[in-house]
């Protein structure tokens, strides 16, 4: 989706504002927002791409005005309501009106360290050879899917060079569209593709800037060679 979250190359946001001696959290609710998001994610009711999709699907004004932990909270609440884990009224009041779904197993205290230290691999088995190789010129497709995708707008239609073949990774577009009970976490070859800034931003761009994105095979086409 061409959402408000896709910020690369937008202008007018002003300078980056680093904060001296920034604390890890700025308020207690941020601690809880992080922990609730991580703990609910561990229950397996949604995957990471569905969570990202929920965040970038927030109303654009809300997304822009929210702090990042507020974005997480909004998305967390929306995902729970959408999956019938809680009602909107329960979330607003904090009062339980129906018991929790027994199928949702909480992340136990004893399993936290192992779960965090292990993470969730996005790598999948290689089932076919990679279509592209290091050094190959490719064009990022000019495509604008309505659903979740990880090809930022600023590279679409542009020509770059494969600089690294990362392996076979879960394709976010399909993963985000997972319907409960249906396995949609198949992998696809993933590449780092580097673009010259002048290709992305025009002849006035800094000739000493190169930008890479990690792009799945279905985001890319081989560069048609001149006849």
């Amino acid at each position, binding site marked *: 989706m061409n959402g408000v*979250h*896709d*910020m*690369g*190359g*937008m202008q007018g*946001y*002003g*300078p*980056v504002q680093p*904060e001296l001696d920034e604390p*890890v*959290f700025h*308020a207690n*609710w941020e601690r*809880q*927002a*992080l*922990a*609730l998001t*991580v*703990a*609910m994610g561990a229950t397996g009711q949604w995957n*990471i791409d569905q969570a*990202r999709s929920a965040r970038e699907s927030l109303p654009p004004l809300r997304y*822009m005005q929210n*702090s990042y932990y507020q974005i997480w*909270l909004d998305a967390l*609440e929306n995902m729970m309501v959408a999956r019938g*884990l*809680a009602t909107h009224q329960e*979330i607003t009041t*904090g009062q*339980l009106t129906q018991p*929790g*779904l027994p199928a*949702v197993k*909480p992340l*136990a*205290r004893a399993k936290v*360290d192992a779960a965090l*230290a*292990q*993470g969730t691999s996005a*790598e999948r088995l290689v089932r076919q050879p990679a279509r592209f190789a290091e050094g190959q010129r490719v064009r990022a497709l000019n495509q604008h899917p309505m659903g979740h995708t990880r090809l*930022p707008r600023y590279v679409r239609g542009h020509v770059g060079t494969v600089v690294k073949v*990362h*392996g076979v990774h879960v394709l976010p577009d399909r993963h985000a569209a997972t319907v409960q009970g249906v396995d949609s976490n198949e992998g696809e070859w*993933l590449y780092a593709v580097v673009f010259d800034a002048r290709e*992305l*931003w025009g002849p006035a761009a*800094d000739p*000493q*800037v*190169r*930008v*890479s*994105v*990690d792009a*799945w095979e279905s985001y890319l086409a081989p560069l048609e060679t001149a006849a």
Partner: protein
Amino acid sequence: MDVRVRALQTLLTDKGYVDPAALDRIIETYETEVGPHNGAKVVARAWAEPDYREWLLRDATAAIAAMGYSGRQGEHMVVVPNTETVHNMVVCTLCSCYPWPVLGLPPVWYKSAPYRSKAVMDPRGVLSDFGVSVPADVTFRVWDSTAEIRYLVLPLRPPGTEGWTQEQLAELVTRDSMIGTGLPLRAQDVAVTA
């Protein structure tokens, strides 16, 4: 916000979806244990041990795991080395992807619109927002973290640090130098008891 989040936590606890002790442990982990001091040790070791540096650049996930740092938001690591002619900078234009096991949770500015919009277009300008500059002939390489690969910048070892221990070297490694929005401290910035 405090009231809203407290209500949510109560609800999810009453529903049996979350274990409050688990929440506390998650917070404790990212507030007190995991942070840029982890990445600093990785960088210091790479500066001190050529073999480790080679391993780190070839298979960062394994080389970093060998130091005890692994897992969530660092499952697939790539380390990109700065040189005299190339300066690397890491961003996530689409959300907030960041290598948690080595850097901890991302700072607010990393997730902000100014950084996410500007880094891929004007990295030199971003550096100057941080009060930092690199020589005019240095090339910028910006890595947009659009997949589950997490990038860590290996900054240049500051001159005048020959013979320093890894512990001393780690003192020079700032968080921002591992994102590429800063440089390591200089030798004279820290007091070293040789």
